[in-house]
Every structure is written in structure tokens, then in C-alpha cells.
């Protein structure tokens, strides 16, 4: 089911199995038939670790979505609520439970908090007079969910907002907990590096928790050599730019949720003769995207401009493979051909899907507006005209382009100029408020608080220094066979990944000056290992570094890290963990004021 998780350098299936075991143990605690009532947000992440079949094996017969009033009727012995510890959800649960008592046979209620049991929520249930109705109240420490062979995410959408706007460290605490779980399974990570305020806090919590757990930890040979904790606010620039890898573009245009994407169905209509396109499917086409699919694994991290040639090459290979059947003469040959058929058919299906997706994306990327937007972005990132009001942005506002797009561009300009001149900033803000409504004052305020939008302090622009020292802008990009990570943004090398790259070679000491300009402290901690567990590295053996992005990571950054892992003389392989997989749009959206 999840073999692709074990392909990487670190077998993340171990983690998946561990969380599955925990889930099974909980389900078995509630004997008899069960119905699960889901906090809808959790269904996506849970789908990655346990399919319905697993639940079914443990007598889960019905599934409902958590909503007010009565529960739907179900002839089961147990009702289990799977919820995040949120107060508003507790109110709904209480409503469910109270309306339940009056009818039908008595059923047992249980509640499973994901990822942490909360005293506050239990207090609320108690206040509502239903706490006693629950037989089992447990927590399910699903902090880091394996997404792919080298990718873990907490899928906690509010992490960045909570940390930077609301000074709420809950998600950092969960991140630290998740890292402890990881260390319990994969051994203590000997070295921790970090940059940023939140990184510092997570490292502190980890060290603290390690003290709490001492004595009970298992002696496991460490799988990870280093941990790099990076605050998103150290690199606010990268997510704002439009990702130009295949996977990144799919996410930018259609949005990838829990490794699934929903696409317009027209392109995927089965092509049958005489059908005349009578009944085009109306429901969106849902596809799972991960490296279990061979073709996708190959193209996901390529610059989109390099995808076409791979697809056409693949098409030739596959049709050549199908041609083989004409050459198969002997029974043995035919048998061999037939045995390969399922694989070939799967490959053909996958090729067809991705060709369709590529066509869909191409429609967007060849549009003039996309080109104009990209040009502006690239001008900003290479440091051209960042201190003036940009007419493209003005035009976008005037034409009422989506607010998120506009904000993303303004923020990008602000970040690339270490803040905007007061006059420029006020102009943009006034334009936005007049066009989109004054209620967005709060959103602008949030963006300012998060540092995405700000007046330039002291009139100095430090971005050019950073850009030059870290070589963030590369003029000679080879999109087809890249030599540098800058290919993921066709010129811009993501700052966060550059930091990771420089950490492994030659080390951060060489860039002390820039590190001081970037916000938050940078630090290094060692976690001593018992002598028996210290690793003797074989010559040529790569280090494994876990890079944890606190506040979100984009697919392009992941692609860049994968590119570094694959470099022959790189010396480091990366596993990526994050609080949430984001792109510029979802990220800005998480900072926007929600309608009341």
C-alpha cells in the first residue's frame, strides 16, 4: 500500500507502521462494532496512513462527518469522535451526545484527540455536562505524517499564523513532540542546527523533552546525522514566488491537498470512437500524486519546461514496447510480453494522465498574464525597480485581479526591498483598501505583523547583500539539465535551500554576516550519543540531514533539496519535514482575516 515510503534513504514506512499500530490498538480498545465521526479536516491526513479497509478490519462500519444536532442512525455499539482539540468542535460533540440519549439503544461514546489531548477541551465537555459520557478519552499523537519517501508534514494549516501573529506555540510544541517520536524510531539525532526564533524554541523544547524521557529511550543506531530547523520567516521570499517545477505548478494552479489533486475532467474523458463527447464527465478528476508512480517520480521535480521532452520520450518508449508484440514469435516470448502487460498498461495510463495535466498547465503558463506576472516577479528577485510603485501591480488592482495574487506580488516586492518606502507602501495599501474593501485593513495589518509587508527601516536595503552572498539570482539557468537549485524558479535559488546547502558545505561560518542580517538567532546543539552508537562513516557514505521547515514548505523547495540529494558529490541526502505543505496562495490565505 505504501511501498514508496520505504524507497528513500530513510525508511519512513517504519513511522507509518508505528502510527497505524497505535490506531489499531485504540480501535481494539472499543470492543464491538463502531462508527467514526470525523472532524472533516482530519480525513485527508488520515487517508495517508489508514485506508478504509484497515478501519473495516477493526469493525468500523459507518463513518460520518461531524456536524451539529443529531447523529445519523447507525446500528453500532460504539461511536468514536476523531477530532482536533478545538473548543468549537467540543460544542458540536456535546450537541451530538445530548440529542442522542433520548432514543434507541445505549451506545458507548469515545473520543480520540488528534494530535494531543487537551485539558481545556475536556473542561469544556465537563462544563457542557457530557464528559462522563465518554468511556475512552485518548490522544493520538499523529504529529508527522509520512507523505512520501522523503517527506513528512504535520498538515497543521494555522502553524505560521499561530506562531507569528498569535504568539501561540502549540504547533511548535507538536513539532518538537513529533521530532521526539521520530527520534524514538530512528535514533537520537546527534547534531541540531537552526535559524530563527521558532527554531530556537523547538530546539529548546526538544532538549527539555529529552531530559524528560531519559532512561526510557531505546538504543537505536542514529539514522539521521543532522537536523536543520528553519523558520519560515527567515525566508519569506521563496513561497511568494511562483513555483516553476511540474509539481509546484500543479499545486499553484490546482492545489494539491494531502497528495491528491482535483483536475477539470474534460481532458480526461475516455476517448472512444462514436462517442462524440456526448457525456463528458462533470465530476472533477481526482488523482493521487506521489513517487509510487514511476513517471511522476521522474518528472515531478523537473522544471516545467523540461517535462515535455521527457513525456514525448516516454511515449516513444512505451509505444515501442507495445510494438514488441509483433516480434514475439515463440510462446515463451509471448508469455514474457503478456507478463509485462500490466506494467506497460499502467505506464501508458500514467503517461496519458500526465500528458493531459501538462497540457492543462501549458494553457496557463503560455498565457500572457502568467508571463507578465513572472516577469515582474523575476525583476523583483533580481533586484530591478523594487523601490518604486510597480505599474503591473497597479494594473492588477485596477482590474480587480484576485486579491491574493496582488498581495503576493506586493509582499514579494516588499521582501525584495527589505521593506517598501512609506509612500509606496501607503499607496499600495490605499489601492487595495479602496478596490477590495476596507475590511482588508486587518489582513494588511497581519501581513505587516508577519513581516511580509513593512516600511523600510532606516532606508537601507539589505536584500542585495543577501542576494549576492547567497547567490540567490543565477542568470544562466539550465532548465533541462540543471546544475544548480535555481532551476526550480528559473533563476531564483530558494534562500532556505541555499542555507541548507551552505550548511553542509562549507558550513555556516562562511556566511556569518548574512546570517546576522536574517531574522532570529542561529545556533548549533549537540545531543551526545552513547559511545556504542557513534557512527563510523564509510568513505563515500552520504550524511542524512532532516530539514524541518517551521511554518511551511513549498514543492519547489522540496524539489531543490531533492536535487541536492541527487548530486553525485553532494555528500548529503535530505529528508524534509514541515508543519504544512504550502504555496504562496494558501500561505497568504492562512494569514488573511477570515470573514466573521
Amino acid at each position: 500500500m505504501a511501498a514508496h515510503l520505504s524507497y528513500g534513504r530513510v525508511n519512513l514506512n517504519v513511522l507509518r507502521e508505528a502510527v497505524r499500530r497505535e490506531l489499531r490498538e485504540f480501535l481494539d480498545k472499543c470492543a464491538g462494532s463502531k462508527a467514526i465521526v470525523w472532524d472533516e479536516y482530519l480525513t485527508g491526513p488520515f487517508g495517508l496512513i489508514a485506508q478504509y479497509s484497515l478501519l473495516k478490519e477493526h469493525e468500523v462500519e459507518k463513518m460520518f462527518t461531524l456536524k451539529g444536532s443529531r447523529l445519523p442512525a447507525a446500528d453500532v455499539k460504539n461511536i468514536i469522535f476523531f477530532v482536533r482539540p478545538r473548543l468549537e468542535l467540543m460544542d458540536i460533540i456535546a450537541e451530538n451526545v445530548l440529542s442522542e440519549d433520548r432514543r434507541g439503544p445505549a451506545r458507548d461514546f469515545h473520543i480520540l484527540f488528534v494530535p494531543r489531548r487537551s485539558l481545556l477541551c475536556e473542561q469544556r465537555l465537563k462544563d457542557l455536562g457530557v464528559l462522563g459520557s465518554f468511556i475512552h478519552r485518548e490522544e493520538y499523537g499523529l504529529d508527522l505524517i509520512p507523505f512520501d519517501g522523503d517527506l513528512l508534514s504535520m498538515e497543521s494549516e494555522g502553524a505560521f499564523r499561530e506562531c507569528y501573529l498569535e504568539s501561540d506555540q502549540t504547533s511548535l510544541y507538536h513539532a518538537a513532540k513529533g521530532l521526539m517520536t521520530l527520534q524514538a524510531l530512528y535514533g537520537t539525532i546527534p547534531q541540531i542546527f537552526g535559524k530563527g526564533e521558532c527554531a530556537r524554541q523547538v530546539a529548546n523544547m526538544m532538549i527539555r523533552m529529552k531530559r524528560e524521557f531519559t532512561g526510557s529511550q531505546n538504543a537505536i543506531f542514529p539514522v539521521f546525522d543532522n537536523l536543520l530547523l528553519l523558520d519560515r520567516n527567515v525566508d519569506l521570499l521563496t513561497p511568494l514566488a511562483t513555483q516553476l517545477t511540474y509539481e509546484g505548478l500543479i499545486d499553484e494552479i490546482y492545489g494539491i491537498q494531502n497528495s491528491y489533486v482535483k483536475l477539470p475532467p474534460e481532458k480526461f474523458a475516455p476517448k472512444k470512437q462514436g462517442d462524440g463527447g456526448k457525456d463528458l464527465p462533470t465530476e472533477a478528476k481526482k488523482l493521487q500524486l506521489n513517487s509510487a508512480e514511476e513517471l511522476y517520480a521522474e518528472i515531478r521535480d523537473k522544471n516545467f519546461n523540461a517535462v515535455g521532452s521527457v513525456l514525448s520520450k516516454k511515449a516513444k518508449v512505451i509505444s515501442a514496447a507495445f510494438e514488441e508484440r509483433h516480434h514475439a514469435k515463440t510462446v515463451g516470448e509471448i508469455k514474457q510480453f503478456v507478463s509485462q502487460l500490466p506494467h506497460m498498461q499502467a505506464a501508458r495510463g500514467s503517461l496519458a494522465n500526465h500528458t493531459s495535466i501538462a497540457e492543462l498547465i501549458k494553457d496557463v503558463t503560455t498565457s500572457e498574464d502568467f508571463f507578465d506576472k513572472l516577469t515582474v516577479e523575476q525583476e523583483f528577485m533580481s533586484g530591478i525597480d523594487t523601490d518604486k510603485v510597480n505599474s503591473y501591480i497597479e494594473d492588477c488592482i485596477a482590474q480587480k485581479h484576485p486579491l491574493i495574487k496582488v498581495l503576493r506580488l506586493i509582499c514579494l516586492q516588499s521582501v525584495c526591498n527589505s521593506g517598501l518606502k512609506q509612500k509606496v507602501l501607503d499607496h499600495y495599501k490605499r489601492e487595495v483598501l479602496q478596490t477590495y474593501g476596507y475590511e482588508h485593513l486587518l489582513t494588511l495589518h497581519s501581513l505587516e505583523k508577519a513581516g511580509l509587508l513593512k516600511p523600510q527601516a532606516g532606508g537601507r536595503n539589505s536584500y542585495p547583500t543577501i542576494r549576492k552572498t547567497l547567490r540567490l539570482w543565477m542568470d544562466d539557468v539550465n532548465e533541462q539539465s540543471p546544475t544548480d537549485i535555481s532551476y526550480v524558479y528559473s533563476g531564483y535559488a530558494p534562500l532556505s535551500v541555499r542555507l541548507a546547502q551552505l550548511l553542509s558545505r562549507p558550513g555556516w561560518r562562511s556566511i556569518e554576516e548574512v546570517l546576522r542580517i536574517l531574522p532570529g538567532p542561529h545556533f548549533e546543539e549537540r545531543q551526545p550519543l552513547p559511545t556504542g552508537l557513534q557512527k563510523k562513516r564509510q568513505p563515500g557514505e552520504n550524511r542524512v540531514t532532516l530539514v524541518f521547515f517551521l511554518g511551511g514548505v513549498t514543492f519547489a523547495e522540496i524539489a531543490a533539496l531533492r536535487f541536492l540529494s541527487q548530486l553525485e558529490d553532494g555528500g548529503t541526502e535530505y529528508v524534509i519535514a514541515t508543519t504544512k505543505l504550502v504555496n504562496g496562495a494558501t500561505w497568504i490565505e492562512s494569514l488573511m482575516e477570515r470573514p466573521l
Partner: protein
Amino acid sequence: MDCYTANWNPLGESAFYRKYELYSMDWDLKEELRDYLVAAAPYGGPIALLRNPWQKEKAASIRPVLEIYSASGMPLASLLWKSGPVVSLGWSAEEELLCVQEDGVVLVYGLHGDFRRHFSMGNEVLQNRVLDARIFHTEFGSGVAILTGAHRFTLSANVGDLKLRRMPEVPGLQSAPSCWTILCQDRVAQILLAVGPDLYLLDHAACSAVTPPGLAPGVSSFLQMAVSFTYRHLALFTDTGCIWMGTASLKEKLCEFNCNIRAPPKQMVWCSRPRSKERAVVVAWERRLMVVGDAPESIQFVLDEDSYLVPELDGVRIFSRSTHEFLHEVPVASEEIFKIASMAPGALLLEAQKEYEKESQKADEYLREIQELGQLTQAVQQCIEAAGHEHRPDMQKSLLRAASFGKCFLDRFPPDSFVRMCQDLRVLNAIRDYHIGIPLTYSQYKQLTIQVLLDRLVLRRLYPLAIQICEYLRLPEVQGVSRILAHWACYKVQQKDVSDEDVARAINQKLGDTPGVSYSDIAARAYGCGRTELAIKLLEYEPRSGEQVPLLLKMKRSKLALSKAIESGDTDLVFTVLLHLKNELNRGDFFMTLRNQPMALSLYRQRIEGRVAALQTAADAFYKAKNEFAAKATEDQMRLLRLQRRLEEELGRQFLDLSLHDTVTTLILDGHNKRAEQLARDFRIPDKRLWWLKLTALADLEDWEELEKFSKSKKSPIGYLPFVEICMKQHNKYEAKKYASRVGPEQKVKALLLVGDVAQAADVAIERRNEAELSLVLSHCTGATDGATADKIQRARAQAQKK
């Protein structure tokens, strides 16, 4: 070695029983044992003695002394008994002494005579008095059963979780039963009692008469009954001098033996070993001890002194004023090796090793003999096993030496059984030392487990020995050393004569950062003893905030708890403290406390107060008077709202909730151009955006005339390309072309291409000699019609390259 089997006594054909001395008792008893109430705990546990003045019906003026000794007779505690008359003593599985008083109150004492707690066996007992009581052990813990003066039984199966069960009445019971005992079947405790010739079984629901199968006739009374250690077997002693042995279910008889003694025995206990087929009962009279089994003969011992029998898992301990002995069936491995003229592989191996030490070649002969039979592995195993059952270290050593010798000739003998036996024996010898006085056998030790043994050592305050054992066995720190140190610390905090500072320092010195020590447990104990300051000092060392914070709250150190919770980063913990604080403090103090903790304050606002974060942000903006922009924007917003309301009144159309931009657009769409312009001026909408706005609105209206007029009103600040684009969007090529000619040279090519004039676009591009534009035009050349244009471009390109 000849005399090794001297203390072996055969019983029947296949079994031997032996009795050997464990200790000569260290105690100095003033009276005979029969004058005491005696209770000895199983598994080599402590012995409690209480002079029983009440039995002799003397005046209770003399206060008796309760004494507690180790199994070797070392005094552990001694205290004056100040409570009421005691009927029975017994030890619980946790080695707590239960003293059942005549009034039904049970007093619980620790091993060192420290009073723990008390409970009552029910009100009914108050009037009727307790006649007799038994303390028994089941897999659920230790239970107490009492017989009241009204001849009713009350039972509690677990004193740790006291649930009294009053057993049903036995019909027609006038006098106390001649003997009774507790059975435990299917996890239910039952009482078996004998009244005259009848036996009754009481469970919590009913009383039923039972008859043991195959009992010889003529019985008019049962004098004693005994249940085996595992509750599997039952023995009955009748007034005919007959001993009936069978299963405890009374369904099967094992054997019967007539000892021809009619005097009631003082004690009768089972003596069997787990997994052995032999069953035997030890019966004691004043001066006689008899081992009876399924054999025509019995083994007889003479008792020189008053003795007391303690049933064990694999034998019987017998102690008197001067000695402490152990009687058990000789284990198979020992029997095979030591039986006279035994040819068992183990016996040969032991012999071989001895010859080897004597440097005799016979060693080789013996070894060959074993090897020829292919029994060397078995021989080694036998020697290892037999070593475990030996009490004397020299015998253990010679058996282990033999095993080690035999091991040399085996290729692949897994060493762990040998190593483990060596370790176990070392531990056993250490605790059997009379200073410690826990005479565990190997089987008992395995049954008890090392964890429980360590607990018992801790209970005896033998911390150094316990730690040594942990270190020797390399137990994980959390189960071993840390746990023991924590117990030591808990004991330490109870020493009231030492100052807080000294205790805290001593504890921290010894425990340091030993992993897995729960400082909060120790602190809780200190708090329990009323030493709050000490508890707080100790809590400083606790690394787990989850443990630290609740205790601090309990001790009413809320502010300290709050800062600890914040330090931990666990927000849920912070909430807990906040909720607690909110109930505890008045509102003013509460906010004063929060003021110094910004994180707590923001968490409080966010979740507990339930205030919407947005409002907070807005309020923040207001309070910050310095934020002129926000203030201005808010003013504008209010101005717009007022305006919109007026417009709604005048024009009868909805304007509220529209942005300024949308308001102006709506006005234009409705044809209120004047008002629109006024509004734009009032709010100083920049020219560029106003042009875009008008352009979009007019195109939406498809008011091409007005659009053209507007385009000519003055020079467009946004150029004319947008005009072309918007016309094309509305599919009005005709209008679009009008504006295409006015587009500036920079964007002219784009505009011309938009309206589909490829030829002219090519001309412009060639004229401008712009490579990018040339290729753009080229990419638009499709079909035959544009063929000529394409050629033209190619030519221009070639020309440009020549230059």
C-alpha cells in the same frame, strides 16, 4: 559426597524429601512459640509474633508486644500493642501486616511497625465479635475472611480494594465449624467448612453440601483441612486419623492415608513442587512431623521444640525458637545427579569434572561415555538446573564448574542459561545471607520475579543491596537504579529531624541527573509530610513539566506553576494553569499576573476569552494612536459607509458592503457618471486606476460611443493597449482596431497581433528590429495567408544578422 543424600527420605518409590537448615534463629524469644500469635509471610517473608494474653483470658492489663523479625530472626520492629484484642495476624502480598481484631477492625502495619491504615470488616461484627480470621492470597491480591460469633462468614478478596461480601448462612449451624478454609476457583473465593461429618461450600450466592469422593466411612468430624499453595488441591484430616487428599474441586481423590493418630494436628500444609507429579502433605503435632503422600509409608520427623509451618510454592518452611528449616521434594535434576549409583548424564559429568581436577584420565572415560550416548548437552543442562536447587554455595559451585567443564566439549551451547544461572545464584546467595534473611529458593525467586524482589529489598530499606543487584544484573535504569533511588529519596524526606536544605542537598547529590527519577513523586511525598518548602526545592529538579505543574498548583504556587508551564512550551499546560488561576484569583490580580507573561496573555485572549482575533487586531490598531494610516483608513471607511447609505436612499439600490472601487463601478454601470467622478475625486482615486475602472465598466456596458469619447478626453495614463484588449475580450474587432493605431510603439506589435493584423505587426517589428517581437509575430503566422509575411520576417532576420 557419600553423605550427600543422608538427609534424603524416600516416600514411595519415586520421590525423595529432604529437610535442611536455613538459619539458626537469631532471635531470643522469652516464651515458647505456642504462646504467641504467629504470622509468617510466604516467599521467605518476615515473621510477626504477638504475645497472646487474650487467649489465656488473663486480664488485659499487661500490654502485649508486637514483634516483627526477618526469616533469620533479625529484629525488624517491636511495638507495644495498644489496641484491642487480636484474633489473627497475617501478611499481605505487599508484606503489610494485617491484624484482625476481635471487633472486626483490621489494622495494617508496615514491615517496620509503622501504622499504615485500618478498615473494618463490617458493622455486624461489632456485636458478634470475630471468632476466627484468615488472611489468604489470590492472583488479585490479599484477602481477609472472618468468622463471626453468629457463625457467619464475611470475606473481602482484596484488601487493597475493599469490597466486603457477606456469605450466605449455613443452614442449621449452631456451633463454630470444626475447621474451615478458603478455596479459590474460577477467580472466585469460596469458603469450605466442616461441621461434624458434613462439609459445606459457601460461595457468595449459595451454600451447598459437598462430599469428598472415596472418603473412608466412619468419619464423624473433620479436624483439619489444608489447601495447596496454588489452590489446586485439598487435604482433610478426619477424626479417624485418616488423611484424604484430592482436588480442591472435590471431584477427584488422589489418595488416602491412615496415620492412626486421632489427636488433632496443630498444623497441616501441602508440600509439593510446581510441575511435579508427587503430592504430599506435612502434618505437625506437638512433637511429631509427618510427611504423607501416595505411599503406604510416611516419613516421620521428631520435633524437639514448638514449630511453625509456613507453606511455600515448592516446599514447607519450619521454624522454631532455635532453627529455621526447609522441607521439600528433591527436584528431578538433583535426584538424577546425586542418587546413589546414578548413571544419569549429569551425574557422570560431575564425576568427570572431579576426576579432571584430580588430573586423572578417568575424566576422559566419563566424558566419552556421555558423548557416546550423545547426552552432553543434557548433562550440562542438568548440572545447571541442579545448581539452582542447591542451598549451599560450595555445592552450587561444583555443579556449575561441572557444567562449565562440559560446555567446553560442546560446539554450540548457548551460554545464556549458564550465565543467567550464575547471576541468579549470586543474587540468591546475597539475599539468603542471614543479615538480609530472605531464604528464597530458585523456583520461588523465578515466580516472584526480580522486580518484586527489589521492591521487597526497598521495603526493608536495603537500598545499597538493591542498587548493587540492579547494577550487577544491568537492569535498565528506569526499572532499576533510578526507581530504587527514588524510593530512598521518599524515605529520606520523611526524616523530620533533618533540615529542608540538608535533605534536598543530600537527595540531589545522590540522584543528580539520574535518568528516569521522578522528582515530582518525591516532592509529592514531601508535601504529604507537610514539608511544602522542601517539595518546592525538589520540584526544581523535575524535568517533566507535565508532572511539575499540577503539583505546584496543588501546593497553591500558581504563579510558579504558570512560569514553569510557559517554559515547557506545552500550551495545554498553560491553559490548565490559567483556568486554575482564573478561579483562584480576583480579576484584577489575575490580569496583573498575566501582564508579566505576554504569551499567556495572548493565549488567554485567544482561546479562553473566546474573543475574535480580528477584533483584537482592529482594537490594537485603534489603540496605537501612532498608526496614522490605519486611523485614516478607518475614517475613510466610515465616510464611505455614510456615502453609501445616502446613495442607497437616493438611488434605491444596494451599495453597502461594496468596496469603494465597486461603488464607483456600480455608479458608472447605472449611468451616474457625475456622481462616480465626484466620488473618485473625494477619495482621490488615482488616475490610472480610474481609467481602468471606467474602461472596464464601459466595455461591460458595451457603450462603445462613450468609451471612444472617454478615450479622447485626454491622453490615457494607462496607454491604449488595455483598450484594445478589452474590446477584443468583448469580441469587438472593429472597435479594437480603432485603438490599435493609437498604441505606443512599445506595445504596438502586441496590439496589432491582438486584432489579427499580422502583416502590419511584421512591418512594425521589422522596423523596430526587435528580435523578440519578430519571433512573436512569426509564431502567429499560420497557414498559407501568412506565408508571405513569414518570408518577409525571415529575410529581415537574415539581413539583421549580416550586419
